[in-house]
C-alpha cells in the first residue's frame, strides 16, 4: 500500500500569515492531486501536478511537485479565514483508486 504522509497534521494560524503543508512518500508518483475539504462538505479538487519540479499557482496557493516525484508541497500566502479546511494530497492509482494522504487540518482565525 502506498502511503502519503502529510505534515503538519494540524495548523492554527492567524489571518495574514504564510504556511506550507507537505506531502511525502517513499514511492514515485506519475501525478499528485491536492483537494480541500471544508467542514460539512466533500473534497474539492484544487490542482494536479504531473511533472517533477513543476510549480502551479492558484491565486495565493502555490503547489510544487518534487523533482523526484515523491513529494509535494502547498504554500499559502497571507492566509484568510476562507482557507480553513482539510487539505488532502491524493494519488490516483490504477483502476481509478484514489489513495488519500493523512490530511492537514488548517484553521485560520481573524
Amino acid at each position, binding site marked *: 500500500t502506498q502511503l502519503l504522509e502529510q505534515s503538519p497534521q494540524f495548523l492554527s494560524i492567524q489571518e495574514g500569515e504564510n504556511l506550507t503543508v507537505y506531502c511525502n512518500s517513499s514511492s514515485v508518483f506519475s*501525478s499528485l*492531486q491536492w483537494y480541500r*475539504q471544508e467542514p*460539512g*462538505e*466533500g*473534497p*474539492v*479538487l484544487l490542482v*494536479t501536478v504531473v511533472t517533477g519540479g513543476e510549480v502551479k499557482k492558484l491565486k495565493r496557493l502555490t503547489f510544487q511537485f518534487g523533482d523526484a516525484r515523491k513529494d509535494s508541497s502547498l504554500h499559502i500566502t497571507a492566509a484568510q479565514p476562507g482557507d480553513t479546511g*482539510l487539505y*488532502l494530497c*491524493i494519488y*490516483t492509482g490504477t*483502476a*481509478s*483508486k*484514489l489513495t*488519500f494522504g*493523512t*490530511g492537514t*487540518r488548517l484553521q485560520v482565525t481573524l
Partner: protein
Amino acid sequence: DTAVSQTPKYLVTQMGNDKSIKCEQNLGHDTMYWYKQDSKKFLKIMFSYNNKELIINETVPNRFSPKSPDKAHLNLHINSLELGDSAVYFCASSYWALKDIQYFGAGTRLSVL
C-alpha cells in the same frame, strides 16, 4: 444544480438495522465511487463502478452492498448496522479517462447507536 447529490445528509439509526444511502450525479460521468471517512478524517475508497460494472471492491464487509441501476446512480445498502459503521460516507464521480478529477458529494453522516 448540485453535481453530485447524496441523500440523506444525516442518518441516525440503531444497531442491527438496515439502511440505504442514495447518490446521483448529473455530470454525465461514467464512473462513480463510495468512500468512507472515519473520525480522524481519513478517507478510504470502498467501491467504484464504471458503466454500472463493479471495478473496485476494497476489503469491505459483505453487509455493504452497492447497486448501480444506471450510470448516474450508485446507491449503498448496509445490512445489520454496527457501531463501527459510524462515519461519513462520500459518493464521487468522474470520467474513467480522467479518474484523478473526481467530484464529491457533500457526504452522509451515519451514526449508529
